[in-house]
């Protein structure tokens, strides 16, 4: 089956979602009023748009994540052959993780992992 199956699954997902939504669209006639299209904000008319620049404290985590994510990616091929390669692999990974752990400690020291 191979990759074809992925396409089959994609088609399944689209068919499933679209089918459900379409049935609702066809059979349900909703009322319309000017309030309905407005954003819900606890029953109060919204005054400011959220599509507006505002502070996110999360980007630092995303930055760090990116770094660790790439590291994780490199560990996959390593993990597969660890048993075959033996001790050398352990040393290699020790160095690898050690270096990164330094970075982690640095981030910790700098307070990058603290919510500001």
């Amino acid at each position, binding site marked *: 089956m191979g990759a074809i199956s992925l396409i089959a699954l994609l088609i399944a997902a689209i068919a499933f979602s679209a089918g459900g939504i379409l049935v609702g669209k066809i059979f349900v006639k909703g009322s319309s*009023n*000017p*309030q309905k299209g*407005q*954003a819900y*904000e*606890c*029953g*109060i*008319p*919204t*005054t*400011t*748009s*959220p599509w*507006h*620049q*505002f*502070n*996110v*404290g999360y980007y630092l985590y995303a930055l760090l994540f990116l770094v660790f994510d790439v590291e994780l990616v490199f560990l996959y091929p390593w993990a597969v052959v660890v048993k075959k390669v033996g001790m050398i692999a352990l040393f290699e990974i020790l160095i690898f993780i050690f270096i990164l752990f330094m970075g982690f400690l640095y981030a910790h020291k700098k307070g990058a992992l603290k*919510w500001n």
Partner: protein
Amino acid sequence: MYNQTEIIKDTTELGPEGELVVNMGPQHPATHGVLHLVVTLNGETIKKIEPHLGYIHRSIEKMCESLTYRQFIYVTSRMDYLSSHINNTACALLVEKGMQIEVPERAQYVRTILNELTRIASHELWIGAMAMDLGAFTPFFYAFREREMITEIMEDTCGARLTMNYIVPGGLMYDIHPTFQNKVKAFIKQFKEKVVEYEDLVTNNVIFQSRTKGVGILSAEDAISFGCTGPVARASGVNCDIRKIAPYDVYAKVEFDEVIETAGDSFARYMVRIKEMNQSIRIIEQLIDTIPEGDFVGKTKNVLKLPKGEFYQRVETARGEFGVYIVSEGGTTPHRIKFRSPGFSNLSALSHMAEGSKIGDLMATMGTLDLVIPDIDR
């Protein structure tokens, strides 16, 4: 009148840079009713909170000016509906004080017991609601199981589950139910068994502790300055229990401790309420077997007329000091009536407590303030 002529504002209007102005409430699961907070956020950090009240302002004070002294009591149980008995007691006490009506001992005992039961019921509900605010759903159901026992007792004796109207100037509306004492004792037994469950689920839970410890700190000076009372002030180390300061009914005769914590954070407020429930149980235990026989209502005239003058009565509800202030012209209805609600003052401290913390902290802070909005708006 309620047509949709309301102008829909342009949503592209922008707030100040970097900030997000979010309306919380009036329809929000955590505002326990219809509080409207305009929260200015910087990321997840709260920069400013501005409470808007009045979404349940029912003009009770105005209404009471046209109700007689027998009638106005029932409205007060709609204000702080979780301490309806205590509110009713306050009004009855005030009328009794003004007209010098003797209240039979029996009525006083029953009132005290019911007041304490109400307090426990209110705190039980609060535990459930607060746990829900913090995202734990199960304690709500366990707390309501015990609360349901109290409501059953209330139902037997007063005939209602929430808004009792059982207390009249001079005593009680009718005598207690014959099974009252047994049921209360059964409740005490069950309560003592089950209250330890909250320890496992809530009190000792790391997540709960880290969500509440050091969150929403209110110092003692601030608590006094903001006029906070009840568990909120007592958690900051202010002793303000009216039951101790100006005892009414039979509180002078019973032994109990005023629960004081000093940390002033949400966890302290939580602990105060938990301990207060135990104190309430202690009071009830002292009284339940010694309810004196006798009349349940004192001698009153048919038409009550308060003499000209001003009267004030303070009681301790589950949320703090509740005061009734009546200016009488000597007629059958009050000239001016003012209810001093504990929640109103406690709420005013909210923005002071929550500024600079996270949205999640706001829930913990607000949850432990135990706000009842109709009580605040009146």
